[in-house]
């Protein structure tokens, strides 16, 4: 079962600090840029929606063709955004929660500047493994 999915982490200041194409479908160059564009366009919607609820998981907030954008907002207003074509909400929620734990561990590093790019290759490996597991 092939699925397209693009996952980015956007900091509080609207700067992407991590990006990954995690779908199992074949990757195309133009598709990757289109995915990022759609995710950035959805940021406005997230901003308004984030203040209306105290939950962290914001489910599907935007659509593009047959792709859906789901968002998870952390306490520090760091947004985990996923562009995907599947309908597996519980899997996506678990994926976000696990990535949230990983993100907190990265954040606790006193030498990590909050809002800067996450460059740890171990983090990248773990996120891709989680994506394969839950998505």
């Amino acid at each position, binding site marked *: 079962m092939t699925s397209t999915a693009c996952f980015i982490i956007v900091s*509080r200041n609207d700067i992407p600090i991590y990006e990954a194409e995690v779908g199992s479908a074949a990757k195309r160059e133009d598709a990757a840029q289109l995915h990022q564009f759609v995710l950035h366009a959805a940021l406005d919607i997230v901003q308004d929606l984030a*203040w209306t609820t105290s939950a962290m998981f914001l489910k599907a907030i935007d659509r593009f063709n047959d792709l859906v954008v789901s968002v998870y907002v952390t306490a*520090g207003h760091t947004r985990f955004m996923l562009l995907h074509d599947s309908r597996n909400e519980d899997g996506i929620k678990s994926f976000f929660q696990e990535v*949230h734990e990983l*993100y907190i561990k990265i954040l606790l590093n006193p030498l990590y500047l909050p809002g800067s790019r996450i460059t740890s290759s171990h983090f990248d490996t773990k996120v891709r493994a989680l994506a394969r597991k839950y998505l």
Partner: protein
Amino acid sequence: MIGTGKIKQYANVLDKPLGKGKQEVSLSAFAFLFSELVQYNQTQVDNISELETRLEDAGYAVGARVLELLCHRDKGNRRETRLLGILSFVHSTVWKVLFGKVADSLEKGTEHEDEYMISEKELLVNRFISIPKDMGTFHCGAFVAGIVKGVLENVGFPAVVTAHFVPVEGQQRPRTTILIKFAEEVLRREARLG
């Protein structure tokens, strides 16, 4: 071999579980560390306000991390979106985790709409510190003010946070007040959310 107990060694910090963390940390260790922090910064700056700024920045980094960690660990992944909610979060949860007790009091300022005060009889960080007369209004609680600022700013409630000594009649040592002055946009958003 001595030392090969049942403790599992993790290759990378990302594999280690977050866990509940240490409930207690040695006060003397912290006091030494904090005094070194203050002394080191004293050699780097020329005046008192710069020193306070540096302490505040150090606290800001702590605040940003404490916010994420506590919301995840103690609040079951619920975010705070309202002013009173975040203030009581700082006043109880953050204080309890950092200093072992909730803050003494949380008051709303009488003169201005956007001012709130968290008061404490004696800040933990000031326990072993005495300010020489020639340093005037310097307050090591700038570190704690920085922590509060870090929490508030990352939650989306930007504020100017400062620490002040407030003399109390009948007591020799003055009380400490953390004054929180919220930015315009916070009040506007609060009014909009109703």
